[in-house]
């Protein structure tokens, strides 16, 4: 397999690497860019732990090849908090409502939910649960994640 040179922008920084065309975006983010906050739970696009944003839209990085990410703007969980350490309102709400336990799925939830927050203030519980249904959490039973979304949406109004 011939390697390919790529330049991929993640969280405003460009990573130039020579990679195999088959390299998964999740592996590029984790092992080439060293951004290990993005987690890999199933490698077949169901659990959502690997969710990152591509041009602001959530995508499964385990179902995307790294070479497909060229020319797009990627953001990962590492970009959510401010540089001074202030948490994003969604992160803060997860913390306050006990919306995480082992925390392995959490980055995927955060990156899936963050683009929805603007609309989420009009969501009832059922709609929030629908919005969450693309991400698996094995620890929390989702209840406190729902509460976190409600709290963050309220605060961001």
């Amino acid at each position: 397999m011939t390697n390919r040179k790529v330049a991929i922008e993640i969280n405003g920084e460009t990573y130039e690497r020579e990679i195999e065309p088959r390299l998964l975006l999740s592996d590029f983010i984790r092992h080439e860019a060293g951004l290990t906050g993005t987690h890999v739970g199933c490698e077949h696009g169901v659990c959502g732990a690997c969710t990152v944003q591509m041009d602001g839209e959530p995508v499964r990085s385990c179902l995307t090849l790294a070479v497909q990410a060229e020319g797009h703007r990627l953001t990962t969980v590492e970009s959510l908090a401010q540089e001074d350490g202030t948490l994003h309102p969604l992160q803060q709400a997860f913390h306050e409502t006990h919306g995480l336990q082992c925390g392995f799925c959490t980055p995927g939830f955060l990156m899936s939910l963050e683009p929805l927050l603007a609309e989420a203030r009009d969501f009832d519980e059922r709609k929030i649960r629908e919005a969450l249904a693309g991400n698996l959490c094995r620890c929390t039973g989702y209840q406190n994640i729902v509460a976190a979304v409600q709290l963050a949406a309220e605060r961001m109004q």
Partner: protein
Amino acid sequence: MVTEVGVERVIGLPLRRKEDLRLLTGSSCFVDDLDRRDALHAAVLRSPHAHARIAALDTARALADEHVVDVITSAELPQPVPRIPMRMYSIDGMERLLQPPLAAGTVRYSGEPVAVVVAESRYAAEDALERIAVTYEQLDPLLAPEEALDPRNPVLHPDAGSNLAAEIQVRFGDVEAAFAKAEVVVAERLQCQRHGAVPLEPRGLLAEAKDGRLTVWGAAKVVHTNKRILATLLDLSEKQVRLVELDVGGGFGGRGEFYPEDFLVPFCALRQQRPVAWTEDREENLRALNHSREQVHDVEVALRADGTLLALRDRFFMNTGAYVRTHGAVVPNMTVALLPGPYRWPAYECTAQQVVTNKTPAGTYRAPGRYEANFVRERILDIAARRLDRDPADLRRQNLIPTDEIPYETGTHTDRHPVVFDSGDFPLLLDKGLDSFEYDEMLRWRARDPGRGRRRGVGLAYFVEKSGIARWEYARVGVAADGGAVAYVGSASVGQGVETVLAQVCAETLGVPFDAVRVSHGDTDVVPEGMGAFGSRASMLGGSAVAQAAAALRKRLIDVAAERLEASPADLTIEGDRVVARGSPAVGIPLTELAGAAPDAEARFECPDMSFPYGLHCVALEADVETGALDIHRYAVAYDVGRALNPQLVDGQIVGGVAQGVGGALLEELAYDASGQLVTGSFMDYLMPTAGEMPAVRVLITEDAPTPLNPLGAKGAGEGGTAAAGAVIANAVSDALGAEAHVLPLTPERVVDLADERRAA
């Protein structure tokens, strides 16, 4: 009491977790996050067959690959090939059924490790698996216990002489006489399906041999025990081995046991004298991690016409899969021990047969043996209640162990230790639980017409859990150079909040602020001994050890300060970051100055007996008889945990536990086809609840019965959310459809079948 010494009340507050910040910002460190550029990567070749003889195994083409460094088969292992030992409840003969790290000669389940490739990258290692040529001669698989016990069928481990791994029996009272005089007898066959822990983080390891020592990152749950096992299997001294637990993405019983890979990856690292990393994929995880829960029960209850329970008789099979793993006979033993539940039974007999088959080996999963037992007991009681035309809550109330008979000797044993309900008020919890659920209101809701093709039902399930198995825990507490306290604990974190809860206990006992306490766990070089995290033990036993060590350190700090201040220790206390004189806080010494002067205090908290939290699950649901869809209208849990050290975390444990229980009741199944292939080996097939399937859960935590067995009064809180979920949902569905559910999970197909059964009747 611990609470008397501290200045600030911290235990019992819903404090936010210390773990969260790193997990929320992506700065956590799970094992696959370790960035070792010099590491080689391992991949495991697994048997594609459930039962076969390995006629030939050729690794030459894989070894010829330029990216491949090594290929290991059974022939490369130390001879005789070591077997992974049991760490709990072994019964004579089970040692002949233990698993070798790699199969030699015969494979006994689909997914059994056959070879390991070590290569320059994970991609290259997985590619090379395809270049290993294995010739298998397929044999007929035995998949069901009854089939495996049929003497006409082959013995899967000829050395063992039989496919019966263990038989456990308990008996008290005159069972035969009770059944002979019973006015009502109910007998049913009830089955619980194979499913399992499925933590969201796949397993992974990184092993490095350096300077005569071996370090393994990625350990979990029972780090010190696994260090001992690994040292023994590799013929190293314990001093040469270090295991390190990093962030762990969920345990639930399955993760952290000693698996073949826990031997193979360090073995490869020793062979190469280079770091070797391994991360499993999800399909491997579903085929390799311990399965659980597969039991078939033939259960009978004898009652008087007035509803008084006379006897319980049960005989069940537990499908243990191809090998006996680390848990030995724990799971069937737990079922036998806790099947009687919270009721007074004059007579009881139970026989468990743990049977070897050609499926993935089985072990524990959250509320192991009890989820199954609660399903069986609470289901048969509901069937009896319907037979007697009795309200299920009333029938239960009538038979609960009265509060004045507690402590109550049940007559059963776990791990050869008598089961004694140490404390409790079962009728009180029943009343509180029904109130919280609004039972009467739910019965009215049930009576209202939900419309065509819809049926409503209400179900209850009462249970007694156990907590604190393995009877000691270690802690050491010291003052760091910055004046903060550090608690070094033998408990492990699997994501449940150990660092927070143990810091609360330490802070309050020592008398320092919560923010000044750090909890260190999981590195065997830093913490000399420990039992870990299983069986709902970390808070109660780890917490008690921390309380003892912190109390001892407090005394030491005050004694040292008293000498320096020429004061009486009785006149001193700790406030904030200083030891000060009571009443005149200007006089004092900062803890930073005492850091070197007072040695760390150690404690080994011993607790000979387990304690028994107890609770009630209640469900109101609506079933669609055409589609089989279930809509859970209300789910309520009431749970007495003795003392909730952090009620928000207890709540989180309960709700999260319910989610796993609901998964087991409705969705999750490790299903096999007739050839012994796992057909639910991905998340497209192995369905776990999403936010869409999960109802909101109403939680009532009560503290009416603190245990006298530890200074905190706390009982384990980790498993009660799961323990009765299968039972309560099966009861509610049966109530809705007017037909008795006998088999879990209640898939839409089964729900429709039950509805049809009712219509046919």
